[in-house]
């Protein structure tokens, strides 16, 4: 069957796969025919993702990619990849006047430093096939807009989008493409852990022209496009998925 978006025969690493967008990316990529290597910190939840994957030659590797040893053991155990999707991330609202160095480290370690270090190690350990596609789950926040208490999160995501541009240039010679997806608010646990109230979320929904938050799989579909041969001439781009939020 004709399908330029197929991931048949591709091996794709998905970080942050134990929950949220990462889990949806892993599940949808497997459905599109990819062999998926999933990684995350939580053994139990990572295994839940693993069990949800459609048939294929999948692997699960528990690792904390914010640590040198975690990232090294992950990379050592990886097969050659046609794609890498960086999803691991945290969002902890904090007002500017309350920011301490430790908070900056915590947010940047997971949102910014880990995906950059992982990219470097995939390259230096020759884990990327020619024409590989690297996808980063960034955000509308920091790139197109921000939110109250969101300065650190925005900074960490904007940094990723800067990285993508330079990396796309560095790797173009090897036909390795580097892109991001930039979602608006997606209904995942990252926002249901209590800092934001149900009333605030109801209020927030009104700011989305398409009248709802996104679903994790809707980000995954964009990731699939960027991993597939359909986007072979696309590099250094940000794919905004926000229900029209940033139009207003």
């Amino acid at each position, binding site marked *: 069957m004709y399908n330029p978006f197929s991931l048949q025969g591709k091996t794709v690493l998905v970080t942050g796969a134990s929950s949220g967008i990462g889990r949806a990316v892993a599940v949808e990529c497997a459905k599109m025919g990819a062999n998926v290597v999933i990684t995350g910190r939580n053994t139990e939840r990572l295994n839940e993702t693993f069990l949800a994957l459609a048939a294929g030659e999948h692997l699960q590797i528990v690792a904390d990619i914010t640590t040198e040893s975690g990232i090294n053991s992950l990379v050592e155990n990886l097969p050659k990849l046609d794609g890498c999707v960086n999803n691991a991330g945290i969002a902890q*609202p*904090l*007002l500017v*006047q*309350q920011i*301490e160095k430790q908070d900056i480290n915590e947010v940047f370690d997971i949102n910014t430093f880990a995906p950059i270090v992982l990219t470097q190690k995939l390259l230096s350990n020759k884990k990327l096939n020619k024409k590989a596609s690297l996808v980063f789950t960034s955000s509308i926040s920091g790139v197109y807009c921000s939110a*109250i*208490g969101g300065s650190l999160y925005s900074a960490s995501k904007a940094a990723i989008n800067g990285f993508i541009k330079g990396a796309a240039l560095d790797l173009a010679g090897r036909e390795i493409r580097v892109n991001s997806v930039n979602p608006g608010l997606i209904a995942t646990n990252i926002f249901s852990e*209590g*800092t*934001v*109230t*149900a009333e*605030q979320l109801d209020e927030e929904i009104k700011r989305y022209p398409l009248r709802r938050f996104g679903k994790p799989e809707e980000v995954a579909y964009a990731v699939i496009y960027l991993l597939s041969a359909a986007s072979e001439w696309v590099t250094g781009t940000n794919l905004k998925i926000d229900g029209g939020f940033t139009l207003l």
Partner: protein
Amino acid sequence: MELSQFIQDFASCFEDTDASEFTATTTFKDLDEWDSLTTLAIIGMCNKKYATKVTGAEIRESATIQDVYNLLTTKQ
């Protein structure tokens, strides 16, 4: 954890309201300066100074500073 210290920390989350206006029985949501930003500041303060996570809903359900203090003691 001292109530008097907590009241000071609570007051520090407000920019314009004078610290003398804050007591254990202050119904903080009646203060002119009260808004979602101060909620966020209080959540941040509880997390940083008292290593305790409180939610926006819990703050909104509390009437006085004493209530928030009690909430923190039950969580610690």
